[in-house]
Structures are given as C-alpha cells and as structure tokens.
C-alpha cells in the first residue's frame, strides 16, 4: 500500500543534504509551509540555496534560517518584505548571495523544471538589468531573453487537503507557488491542514496529483497568522 503520510517531522526532513536547492511555496503568510521551514531549521542542512517570493520576515522561519548562516544564496522577486531586517543585514555584510527574478519568471522557471523544459524565451526583463548576460533573440518581430529552469532538490509545500497517495488541494489564494514548487522538486515535502481518505477528494478537483509529492505531514495549524 502506498502511504506518503509520515508521522514525525524528523521523518519528513530525512535525507536533506547540505548544499541543496530548496524551493518554498507560499505568498505572504498564505500557503506558507511554516512548520516545514521550522523542521528544516531543526534538521540542520546548511549551505542552502533558497528560492521563494520573499526573503523572510522578522526573525522567524526563512529569516531565522538565514540568521543561522544556513543560506548561501536566495533567489526571490521581492527581498523587501514588511520587516526584512535579517536579509538586509546579511546582504550588506556580503554574507548572502541574492538573485532577483521577476515574479512571473520565477514561477515559470519552476514550472519549466517540472515539465522538462530546461530553458525558455520570455519578454519579461527585456531591455532591463534582468537581461544582462542573458541570451536575447528576436522571434516573430519581438525581442525575448532566455531563462533557465529552476529545479529544487527539495520543495516545501503547504496544502489544504492531502491523501495517502499525496494528492493535494489548496484553499483560495493558498495555492500560489505551491503547485509549481511540488512539480519542480525532486523531494517534495508537504504540510497539510487536513488528511483525507483516499478517494475523498474528487478526481476532477485534485490540483497537485500525488506523482509530484513524496511525503505528507499533518499540520492542522488553522488560519494564517497575518502578515
């Protein structure tokens, strides 16, 4: 019997290696895999490259991971959050690398990794600093730049419902980056608010099928805590 549901955080996090590329779902406080990020802090892997939309808030979660010196590089679209103190301090001290990626390019690079597309052309960033050092090409009368897939060794995802095959649904704006993180990552770890019996989720309503999921931990934390 396939059973991707695991019982402990330690089991969820097992096998994450130093130097991993970690992709994070979530946007704002909604759909953020906070428990898994705490688990990663506990687990101890270092020299990480983390891709997420933001670069952490306050001194918790991703910010805490950075503060502990475990993040070598961050890939994000918006390093300035409401309270980016940890990132900014590290960045000014030259202790963390930053790769700024337009938000849509970030999502598309993850989706490309999941879909077997190693590189694609896009109009976003053409004629800007984002195009520096990138191949550009005219196609059909418009200029595009080449962007590469962003694959995760590990993906951290928050879902609303999950079953033992790893099928997932999301709630409202909690979907955001989570489905593309799931498909782009070699080891996709999920924290789910609700565990369902197999078959309880309508097959037409499953958003992330279990083929993109490795382990599921039940974390019924309730509503996002605000921003």
């Amino acid at each position, binding site marked *: 019997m396939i059973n991707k549901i695991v019982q402990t955080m330690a089991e969820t996090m097992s096998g994450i290696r130093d130097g991993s590329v970690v992709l994070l779902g979530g946007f704002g406080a909604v759909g953020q895999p906070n428990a898994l990020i705490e688990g990663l802090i506990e687990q101890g892997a270092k020299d990480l490259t983390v891709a997420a939309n933001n670069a952490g808030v306050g001194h918790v979660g991703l910010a805490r991971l950075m503060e502990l010196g475990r993040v070598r590089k961050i890939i994000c679209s918006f390093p300035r959050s409401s309270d980016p103190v940890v990132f900014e301090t590290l960045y000014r001290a030259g202790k963390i690398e930053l790769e700024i990626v337009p938000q849509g390019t970030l999502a598309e690079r993850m989706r490309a990794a999941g879909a077997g597309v190693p590189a694609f052309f896009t109009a976003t960033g053409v*004629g800007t600093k984002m195009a520096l050092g990138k191949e550009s090409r005219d196609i059909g009368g418009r200029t595009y730049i080449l962007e590469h897939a962003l694959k995760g060794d590990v993906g951290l995802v928050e879902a609303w419902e999950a079953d033992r095959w790893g099928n997932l649904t999301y709630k*409202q704006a909690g979907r955001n980056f989570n489905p593309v993180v799931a498909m782009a990552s070699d080891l996709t770890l999920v924290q789910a608010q609700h565990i369902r019996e197999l078959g309880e989720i309508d097959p037409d309503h499953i958003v992330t099928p279990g083929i993109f999921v490795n382990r599921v931990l039940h974390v019924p934390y309730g509503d996002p805590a605000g921003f």
Partner: protein
Amino acid sequence: MSVTAAAFKPFTRQQMAQRAAADIPEGWYVNLGIGIPTLVADYVPMDREVIFHSENGVLGMGPAPEQDKIEPWLINAGKQYVTLRTGGSYCHHADSFAMIRGGHLDLCVLGAFQVADNGDIANWATSDNDSAPAVGGAMDLAAGARRLWVLMEHTAKDGTPKLVRRCTYPLTAPGAVKRIYTNLATIDVTERGFVVLDIVPGLSLADLQARTEAKLHLPG
C-alpha cells in the same frame, strides 16, 4: 523655472484613480499595481463588470472585506485582505502569470518613478547601486499586459519632473506605457511622444510643460 503660478488645485489621489477608472470599459481584465493604482477599483461601479486580477492567483477580486468578514486565505498581491466576486476563480502562480505574460490582461495600471516619452517605465529601483531592489511582478506586468497605464504624481516631491526624455533610473520595461494619469494631467504616449489629453483646471499647457522634462504635444 519661471512658471506662472496660476490658481489650480492638483487632483487628489482619489480623483486620479477616479479619472483612470472612468476609462476602463466593462469586460476588461485588469491588474492594478500596489499603491495608488489599487484605488482605481473603488471607482469602478460593481454593475460595470471589470474583472480584477491579482498576481497571486486571484481572478475576479472584489473590494476589501468588512472587518468581521475577513477570509484569512484571501489576499491580493499587496498582501491585503480582499474578497472574491461572484464568478471569480483561483489558480496557481504559473497559471496566474500565464494570464499576464500571455497577453490576456487588457490593462495593467502601475505606479512609477519615471516615464519617458518613448514609453519606457522605471518603477522598481531608484539607482543602479540599489543593494537589493525588489521587482516583484512589475516587469511581467509591464511586458505582458496589452496596455500599460501609469498612475503617479506629475513630479517628485522636490519638484523634479517624472515625465522625462529618457529614464535615468533602471528600467522596468522599454516602450511599454500607453497612458499616464497624474495629479496634473492625462497624457497619452504616442509615436510623437507625450500628447496631453486634459489638464487640471487652472493650469495652462505652458505651466504643465514647465513641470515636465519631455516635450508635450497637443492631440491631432
């Protein structure tokens, strides 16, 4: 700058938003950038169906909820609580940006630091040396939407013109802006450059030109 200081009252942010809202027809799919552009939604009456898109996978966004009706899972790209209109839907980030990048939005309204009369927009960094500039979805929106309008003050706080011949700040996208709504005027960006559609009452074209680096043209 010898400007005839005629008696005029600049548009408020609300008036700027109202002016832009009046130009959005029913049925358009529209993304409103963070800041002043967000106000535009308040001036589109609910019975004129305009479908607002938010980068984080919300299509058919409605106004902010009443305090006791907040849905904690329903925010917009500015991370404010919003509502979903009847007929709205959710999708993931790549699908949401497919709407933007695939040319499916009729309009995006952004704020800006500078707009040049060739349509270049600079709205994400004020210096090439900015240590950690935050671009978010601005480049996707500027490059992807069918039309880009800018809603901003006509000049910076110190009076420096924001409508310029060439942007000096790092670009968000080249040649993208089609129209600008400022607190002083409404201006189209055309092949001729800036074309003034209307000016706040009491301000002459010469007065407006004095506050604008690039040359202003009249229609026709």
